[in-house]
């Protein structure tokens, strides 16, 4: 809807100071990278970009300056004159990001930018996205099903379920909702150890699969303290394990375990997914 493909059923929104009704200015302010490729396979990389430059009304000089620039950003300078049908999935995705940037957008929308890509390509795209945000100062809004991607890239994360935002915060704050880290300790003297663990930095102790699950706010700092205590009280510890809550745990916490029945049409962009965003 913010990309002006769908019109709002009610209410309104502003992008870069332009109301959604002003679709021409809104479209000029945003760059979009769709989930599925939207390049012309018969054209070369450069021709695809030239087409984009024309329909976004860049002047001839701007066009000639900007095309090598954006190709440089995504590292495709040498492939400029190759037809898209010779490109791999990752190269296509990078070219689409370059195309999304061509007309100096203020906001870049990425719909699942790394879906179906190999780990190397995924890392490269992450680097490009980070670079865009940090160095070029572009606000990036991305949707993803990969929790690690949202965690790694985003300053603020919104979890969307059934078309509604059910949580919106920084990754750290979202993870804190889970109540902190869990230190898992395997010891033969479980009762004795449990008795000495009466501190306010210990939030909860549970026995799970024969081991002690100790919930603390900061796992890294708690482990040495716990070990000191065990030495002091002469308790033998067999193993220590630290489990930090992941965004996936947070996602499940908010959306529940039930599998979603997706009846979304191609136009329905709001799915049960984490949508992540960050700002400068």
């Amino acid at each position, binding site marked *: 809807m913010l*990309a*002006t*493909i769908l019109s709002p059923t009610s209410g309104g929104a502003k992008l870069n100071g332009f109301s959604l009704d002003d*679709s*021409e*200015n809104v*479209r*000029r302010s945003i760059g*979009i990278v*769709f989930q*599925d*490729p*939207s*390049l*012309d*396979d*018969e*054209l070369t990389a450069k*021709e695809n970009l030239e*087409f*984009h430059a*024309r*329909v*976004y*009304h860049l002047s001839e000089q701007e066009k000639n300056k900007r095309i090598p620039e954006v190709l440089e950003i995504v590292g495709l300078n040498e492939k400029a004159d190759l*037809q898209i049908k010779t490109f791999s999935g990752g190269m296509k995705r990078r070219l689409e990001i370059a*195309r999304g940037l061509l007309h100096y957008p203020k906001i870049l929308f990425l719909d699942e930018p790394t879906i179906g890509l190999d780990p190397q390509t995924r890392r490269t795209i992450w680097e490009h996205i980070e670079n865009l945000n940090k160095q070029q100062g572009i606000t990036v809004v991305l949707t993803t099903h990969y929790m690690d991607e949202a965690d790694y890239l985003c300053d603020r994360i919104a979890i969307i379920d059934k078309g509604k935002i059910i949580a919106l915060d920084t990754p750290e704050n979202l993870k804190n909702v889970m109540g902190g880290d869990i230190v898992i300790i395997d010891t033969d003297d479980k009762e004795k150890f449990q008795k000495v663990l009466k501190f306010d930095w210990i939030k909860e102790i549970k026995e799970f699969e024969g081991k002690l699950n100790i919930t603390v706010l900061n796992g890294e700092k708690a482990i040495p303290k716990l070990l000191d205590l065990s030495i002091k009280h002469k308790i033998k510890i067999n193993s220590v394990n630290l489990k930090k809550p992941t965004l996936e745990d947070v996602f499940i916490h908010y959306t529940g375990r039930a599998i979603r029945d997706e009846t979304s049409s191609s136009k329905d962009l709001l799915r049960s997914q984490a949508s992540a965003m960050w700002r400068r």
Partner: protein
Amino acid sequence: MNMIGDIYAVWLREMIRFVRAKSRVISSLAMPFFWLVFIGIGIGSSFSLPGTSYITFLAPGILGMTLLFSSIFAGVSVIWDRQFGFLKELLVAPISRTSIVLGKVFGGATVSMITAMIMLVVMVFVGLISFSVMILVSIVFMALISMTFVSLGVVMASRMKGMEGFQMIMSFLIMPIFFLSGALFPLENTPGWMQVASYLDPLTYGVDGLRGALIGHSIFPITLDLTALALITISMIIIGKYMFDKAN
């Protein structure tokens, strides 16, 4: 002013694609060529028309056929754009739907006119059609015919989800348009009901106009053909734009 640039951008893309797809050019020339040679000579050797040879009579009809097929195909290519995703790039660009449709129509029309012109050159070269100023008039007809049928293709593409339906269109729309247009036989001697159907066929006026311009033989005066076809072309472009809007 911007709109001209937008239309040009869409048109230019069609041109680049056309130049890249050399095999398509050759195959779109092969069929009308075979029609002209085999049907023209085959039927011409058993039947005769008063005043002109059958193959001469057929030649403008084959031009009409070339334009019909390649134009419809160019219009229907909107479906490919949708399937391969490029249509999304067009739809989110800050350009109007009118520019998109006009760019498509002009692009498709240019492509099919190039094909038809190659046929025309061949026809002039082998002496089926004599070289005269009237060739310029025929070019106007070619432009109108191709724009009409690219628009019709766009309308079809707006109603279709995938290429599966193309066979249906071929059998129930394109072939009847072709047969009823009088490209293959004179309409004057056909039964009344068929003449009515023919006069409802846009291509009839195109073929008749081409015949009038190129071999000096037509049912209607050339100005009537021109007026009728121009009105049809404008309406088809408007319908094409409306249907494209509705589908996207």
